């Protein structure tokens, strides 16, 4: 059970303030999720032919430069690596799959927590403010960001169990709620070769989407199929290269609120996370309808309409 926040800046002038605007949003959700926190920030897109990995290690003094050097030698690729506390952002021109296999074989204690062209994922146990500060996110610049604060329900409080969960290139998922059929689904996905690092129900939702996307199903269709296949209570926020999408289960007990001004679109579990944004008082605010996919800035994702007025509901706050 958790708090979710998402911020998409429509006004480019605000890009330099993304991390600063986002910080109070995440911190306001501390009581909903005191166990761990995480964010996905979309910034500094890599050049054509490059891929960006978000890597994590349990120690904050891990020798990332040696890892990068070894990888470069092994795959004859050019890398840059920037460490941020327990995480590191690796940009490489190596082949994505080869890099992943090499990491799995030669650096088994390193976890790949995100990959794509712009996404960077940072997550750790601890209070949201501490986590945010560890990764020096307050000064971060960019277009959009989603975040999560976690109150662990039925799985351990670990970094691996923290959100966001990567679901594909530049895709990640955060979840508030509690799935009731994730164990069976996890077994099913395992039989199809998906590997899991936690007992977390949200990781299953992420893996489910990953598997669907790998089959070539569009994000919109995958989310709509999730409505049939995932049992339980959920509000999902899915970070995409171009924005974010929101989906609530058909019963829709776990609330969510969306707000929009000329400058930004925000999503949160509670309004208080949005209240600190400039102009929030006069933003158009509403609640996403149950079993309905919403998306912002997802124009490249097949079938996902941008800010579809037809999806606006009665109800708000």
């Amino acid at each position, binding site marked *: *059970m958790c708090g979710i926040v998402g911020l998409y800046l429509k006004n480019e002038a605000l890009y330099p303030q993304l991390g600063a605007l986002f910080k109070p949003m995440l911190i306001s959700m501390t*009581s909903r999720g005191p166990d761990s926190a995480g964010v996905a920030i979309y910034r500094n897109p890599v050049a054509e032919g490059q891929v960006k990995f978000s890597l994590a290690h349990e120690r904050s003094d891990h020798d990332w430069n040696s890892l990068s050097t070894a990888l470069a030698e092994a795959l004859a690729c050019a890398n840059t690596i920037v460490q941020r506390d327990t995480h590191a952002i690796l940009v490489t021109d190596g082949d994505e799959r080869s890099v992943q296999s090499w990491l799995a074989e030669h650096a088994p204690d390193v976890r790949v927590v995100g990959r794509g062209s712009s996404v960077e994922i940072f997550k750790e146990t601890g209070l949201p403010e501490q986590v945010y500060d560890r990764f020096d996110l307050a000064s971060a610049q960019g277009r959009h960001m989603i975040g999560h604060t976690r*109150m662990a329900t039925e799985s351990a409080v670990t970094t691996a169990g923290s959100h966001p969960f990567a679901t594909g290139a530049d895709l990640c998922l955060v979840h508030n709620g509690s799935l009731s059929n994730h164990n069976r689904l996890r077994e099913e996905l395992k039989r199809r070769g998906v590997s899991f690092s936690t007992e977390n129900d949200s990781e299953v939702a992420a893996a489910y989407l990953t598997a669907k996307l790998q089959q070539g199903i569009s994000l919109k269709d995958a989310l709509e199929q999730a409505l049939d296949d995932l049992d339980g*209570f959920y509000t999902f926020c899915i970070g995409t290269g171009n924005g974010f999408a929101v989906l609530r289960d058909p019963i829709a*007990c776990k609330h969510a609120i969306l707000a929009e001004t000329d400058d930004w679109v925000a999503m949160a579990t509670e309004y208080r996370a949005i209240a600190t944004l400039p102009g929030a008082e006069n933003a158009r605010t509403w609640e996403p309808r149950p079993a309905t996919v919403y998306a912002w800035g997802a124009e490249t994702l097949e079938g996902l309409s941008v800010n579809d007025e037809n999806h606006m509901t009665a109800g708000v706050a």
Partner: protein
Amino acid sequence: MDENIPRVTPRQSATFDAYTTSEIRRAASTGIYDIRGGGAKRVLPHFDDLLFLGASISRYPLEGYRERCGTDVTLGGRFASKPLELKIPITIAGMSFGSLSGQAKEALGRGANAAGTSTTTGDGGMTQEERGHSKLLVYQYLPSRYGMNPDDLRKADAIEVVVGQGAKPGGGGMLMGQKINDRVAKMRSLPKGIDQRSACRHPDWTGPDDLEIKILELRELTNWEKPIYIKIGGSRPYYDTALAVKAGADVIVLDGMQGGTAATQNVFIEHVGLPILACIRPAVQALQELDMHRKVQLIVSGGIRNGADVAKAMALGADAVSIGTAALIAMGDNDPRFESEYNKLGTTAGAYDAWHLGHDPAGITTQDPELAARLDPEAAGRRLANYLQVMTLEAQTIARACGKNHLHNLEPEDLCALTVEASAMAKVPLAGTSWIPGQTPF
């Protein structure tokens, strides 16, 4: 037939036994599931499967009656400015006016007062009588919110947010039409005589993250004075206890599947939930990991019958216990002196569980004025007080034998188990060994 061939004794099926076949016939005839009161009747691993290790040479016992063995407990000091001070660690569980007669509720209050402990309202609100007759009254905050109002919240000594109960974790309340008389109907804002069905989830929150906000509201409504209890049915006690603590509970009430109910589907009572023996250690573990053991108190219930059960529950880590069914029996429920009337209802003393129908010969689980008048609240209250006193003395007897000057100093290490099941569930060694299944090598 050849007289020389020995006759085989007619054999009943163990699978399709007499009860099972009668239930199939009943279902086929009525088209509705069996609804009844009470808790699980099946055989379950229970406190009887545990024994205390009395003191001898390695430890020294205390003298009975002369050397002090404390029984008091303070509930709710984590955040509440007015925690409850109980003389004994045995409280009376939530039972509604509606499911019980006014006289029975009064008797519970009288008995609890005399023993220095608290009673609890139920799904139906607080009556003036029970407030008047209970020195310490815990007000239940349930999904139905029947009769819920801020005046009564402020009059309460503690607030118990009911998430679930042992008889039906995940289920809502029920009260059958026969018991919805004018007064009960008015208290619940319902038409008279209908089958009341209560929601299984609270109407305005789900999950620990929202519960935290609900608790904030309840505290703001009551000046941060009242302890906030969270009552959960035994199903995932480790996680639920941890989450209740994270949501801000002062006290956790954990009810095993032997815990009674006024009316629920038999299938629910017998097939959903955990026996209380299996609930306590995981809950205590969660409290310990959060450094909240003895800071957030744990009250356990579901099949508590005597002082030995009290002592065993406390040795496993509970701060107090709660009784419902046992309190009703102490007052006169299922008394053999009503045998002929039980027979007329198609049952027998000890098996009567049609609490939902309101024909209780003992006048306890009824709204029929004539039946209810059979229960003398003063006499029934006295019986309850006696019973509470006996349980306390029994628990003290055991604690002193284990060398303890307070009940809360009992430990799991004072126990051993008679069965492998109980050993595994209570995480105490099998008698005569140091083996705990799943914990230590044999």
